C-alpha cells in the first residue's frame, strides 16, 4: 500500500527539543554552510519528494566528515556566510565577525 510520509517533530529522549533561539541547530547550520556536501558520496535523503524540497541533508559533524566535504576555497566560505546572512541565520554583526575570521 502506498505510504505518504508526514513530517514529524524531532524530539529527544526527554521529549524536549533543545532551544536555539529560533536559529538553526548546530547540525542544520553545518549543513547550510556545506551545501556542496550533497555531491560527495551517497546522501540518504530527499530523493526529489516534496517534503524534502529545500531541506539540506545533515551530515554528521565532527571528525567523521571527509575533508572533501568542506568548502574548497575562501570564496565558497564567503558565499555560505552571505547565504546565512541573507537567510537571517546570522546577524549583520555576527556576519562581519565571521567574515573577518575568513578574510583577516
Amino acid at each position, binding site marked *: *500500500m*502506498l*505510504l*505518504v*510520509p*508526514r*513530517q*514529524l*517533530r*524531532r524530539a*529527544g*529522549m*526527554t*521529549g*524536549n*527539543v*533543545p532551544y536555539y533561539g529560533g536559529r538553526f*541547530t548546530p547540525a*542544520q547550520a553545518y549543513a547550510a554552510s556545506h551545501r556542496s556536501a550533497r555531491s560527495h558520496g*551517497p546522501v*540518504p*535523503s*530527499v*530523493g*526529489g*519528494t*516534496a*517534503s*524534502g524540497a529545500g*531541506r539540506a*541533508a545533515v551530515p*554528521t559533524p*565532527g*571528525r*567523521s566528515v571527509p575533508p572533501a566535504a568542506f568548502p574548497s576555497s575562501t570564496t565558497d566560505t564567503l558565499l555560505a556566510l552571505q547565504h546565512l546572512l541573507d537567510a537571517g541565520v546570522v546577524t549583520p554583526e555576527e556576519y562581519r565577525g565571521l567574515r573577518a575570521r575568513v578574510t583577516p
Partner: protein
Amino acid sequence: MGPVQVLVVGFDRPAFSGEVLAEFTRLQKAGIVRLVDLLLVSRAEDGTLQTMAAPPGVAADLGGLAAELLGRLESEAGGETAAAYADPADVPAWSLADAVPAGSTAAVALIEHMWAGPLNAAIQRAGGSPREETWLAPDDLEALEALIAQREGRTASG
C-alpha cells in the same frame, strides 16, 4: 508510556530470520525496551514509499500503527509523494522520505525505552532541562573505551 524512539534501518536484501524480534522479546522481558511496532517499507526509484507485508511468523497487522503515525496510507498513487503536517521552519522535523533513499528497503521500528521513563521523571523532579542529546561517534566511542581501560589499568596497578 516511556520515550519512544524511531529507528530506521536500511537493508540491501531483507532477510528476516527472526533474530532481531527475538532480541526485542528478550529486552522486553528484561524491562529495558518494548517494540511497539515494526513497519517494513520499500521506496521506488520515483520516490514513492510502499508498505511491505509483515514477514512470516509475525502478526499480520504488524506495522499498521507505525504506518498511521508516520504517514498516510493510500490504496493508489495520487500524484502526491509527501505531505507536510509540521512546518520545518518552526521546529526541527523529519520524515521517512528523508530517511529511506529511493530504490531501497527499510525497517522502521517504534521502540519504547521502558528504562527511561523513571529517569526522565527524576530529571524533571530535579529541575533539569535538556540541552543536547546525541550518540557518540564510533571514533569517540573508541576514545572513551581507551580512557576507561587506561583508568582501570591505573586502578589495578595502584
